[in-house]
């Protein structure tokens, strides 16, 4: 079998699961937006719709005990890392059996049971934390790997420079994965970054840097595979820049009028989920009927999550002051 054939065979095995995960992110978020609009979800949510291939392609490389550090746009990273939709949706609805017992919400989802150390709501603030997780792995000699997700807006924070430098100088097992969706809220990357190709910044830290098509789950998967292998074998950090696009505004409710409509249309034509679905059928990796069943299953999973969340109790008053100091307020 040729290398190309072997790669195709491997992809045919992976593709249905990738598709299932990406679709789960999409449908979960569509329901979340609906619940937000109806007032069942409070505060603010930052949809990941359009960027699903990055989270799913990247997390597919990881083991359960590997770590992920995420951002305010973190639903996709949680689902891709294997979190339960039920407990995620319960968290979004502010219920006590949500992952964070209703204390974090969308912007601070953390699912430690699958190594997801937190959606950090301050831009770039997850980077130092990921570096620390990497240091811990190195000292404990456990051969785990950390993927740190952040957006193009984060790369002009001091934490980006400090964190990448520290990870490089200490040779830590961290993959820095920039989801470049071109806009920091409303501001196009070209207006605020002297070097718009984020991957090129890797040369400042003498680490590998690679720009990939973030709407191709295969391109992300392969680049992350290489970077993770490198990290796991003790060869240090890498920087990957995945070019992608959010179909929604910065947050639900942001009209997004700062983006030319034709730009959005162009990216919608490159929708990573539609692309993978087409490939699944064209290459006969999944029979149409099986694909339909898979899609129904995912829709049911999301529906069940909504029902689970709605049935779940709100946190009781005594939970107000628990967990401040590892569970004991006055200790």
């Amino acid at each position: 079998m040729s290398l190309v054939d072997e790669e195709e065979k491997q992809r045919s095995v992976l593709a249905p699961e990738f598709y299932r995960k990406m679709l789960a992110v999409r449908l979960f978020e569509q329901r979340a937006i609906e619940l937000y609009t109806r007032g069942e979800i409070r505060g603010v949510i930052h949809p990941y719709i359009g960027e699903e291939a990055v989270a799913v392609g990247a997390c597919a490389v990881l083991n359960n005990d590997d770590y992920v550090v995420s951002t305010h746009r973190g639903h996709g990273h949680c689902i891709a890392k294997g979190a339960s939709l039920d407990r995620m949706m319960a968290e979004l609805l502010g219920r006590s059996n949500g992952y964070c017992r209703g204390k974090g919400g969308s912007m601070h989802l953390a699912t430690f049971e699958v190594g997801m150390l937190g959606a950090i709501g301050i831009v770039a603030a997850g980077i130092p934390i990921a570096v620390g997780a990497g240091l811990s792995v190195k000292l404990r000699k456990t051969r785990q790997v950390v993927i740190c997700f952040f957006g193009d807006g984060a790369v002009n924070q001091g934490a980006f420079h400090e964190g990448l430098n520290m990870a490089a100088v200490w040779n830590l097992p961290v993959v820095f994965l920039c989801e470049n969706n071109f806009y920091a809220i409303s501001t196009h990357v070209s207006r605020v970054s002297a070097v718009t190709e984020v991957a090129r910044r890797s040369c400042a830290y003498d680490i590998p840097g690679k720009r990939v098509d973030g709407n191709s789950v295969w391109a992300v998967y392969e680049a992350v595979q290489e970077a993770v292998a490198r990290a796991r074998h003790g060869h240090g950090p890498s920087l990957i820049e995945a070019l992608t696009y959010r179909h929604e505004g910065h947050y639900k409710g942001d009209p997004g009028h700062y983006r030319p409509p034709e730009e959005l249309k162009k990216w919608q034509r490159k929708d990573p989920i539609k692309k993978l679905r087409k490939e699944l059928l064209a290459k006969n990796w999944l029979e149409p009927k099986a694909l339909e069943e898979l899609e129904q299953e995912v829709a049911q999973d999301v529906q069940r999550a909504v029902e689970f969340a709605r049935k779940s109790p709100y946190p009781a008053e005594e939970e107000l002051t628990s967990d401040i100091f590892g569970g004991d307020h006055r200790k």
Partner: protein
Amino acid sequence: MREISYRDAINEALQEEMKRDERVILLGEDISHYGGPRRVTWGLVESFGEDRVRDTPISENTIIGTGLGAAITGMRPLVEISYIDFALLAMDQIGNQVAKLSYMTGGQTKVPLVIRTQGGAGGGTAAQHSQSLEMLFVHIPGLKVVIPATPYDAKGLIKMAIRDDSPVVFIEHKLLYSTKGMVPEEEYLIPFGKAAIRRSGSDITMVTYSAMLSEVMAAADVLHQKEIEAEVLDLRTLIPLDIDGVLASVKKTGRLLIIHEASLVGGMGAEIAAQVQEQAFDYLDAPVIRLGAVPIPIPYSESLERLVFPNKGKIVTASRALIVA
């Protein structure tokens, strides 16, 4: 018991805790072979190696964040910020991340992290290296704030901080490092939230902490000669605060003076005064008085710097005014 310095007391505690638990690691600027800017970590790298006594780049925000990331993945890091003034560079990690992670994840993780730093005026270190910024941390829920005045307390409290499962900001004072005091050779821990009664008295309660303790004790001596007996409480930890200890003393003396080196405005004195009037108003025979720094950047020249802080004379004057009131 033997007499050792504040610096050596902390050094000894770090030696003991690092030997006891290999998850304890140190991170900070110039802490390994250089021994730290105050020589507190001197010799530790020889015992524990550069992996566990790790020099960092000058990147305060990421030093704290790295400590946090390690703390939530199985380590018990102790990070050093050379001057408390530099903690302002790290306030995102301290205030938004370290203080919040346990709570906002619903207790999915604990944060066993100690942030060691030092503050206070050091005789001419001027505006950017002399501040007393403890209240910044007191005001952010999720942090414990420990601020020892003696070698004995420094050792017992830092050991407690390392074993605590929550984030602790441990604030040393640059003028205390060479001061000496009795420290037992056998192991001991000091629990948080318990003030030390440094002197018993029935006429006036003086509440203080950190390096200001020596001025307060000197003032209490002066007052004693004038037959005014002061009870001196050294808080030792600001969070948790031993308000019960303060109240018990105030109920005995009826008069309260709070003294600290930090700026008077929004200082610990204001907080304690408020709590005491809420809980023991009827016991007060006079209004509560606070002494703190004049709210200005710390000036360089000695002729100006000495006007900024409370001292023995100001404490005696304030105490006599309280007694007369």
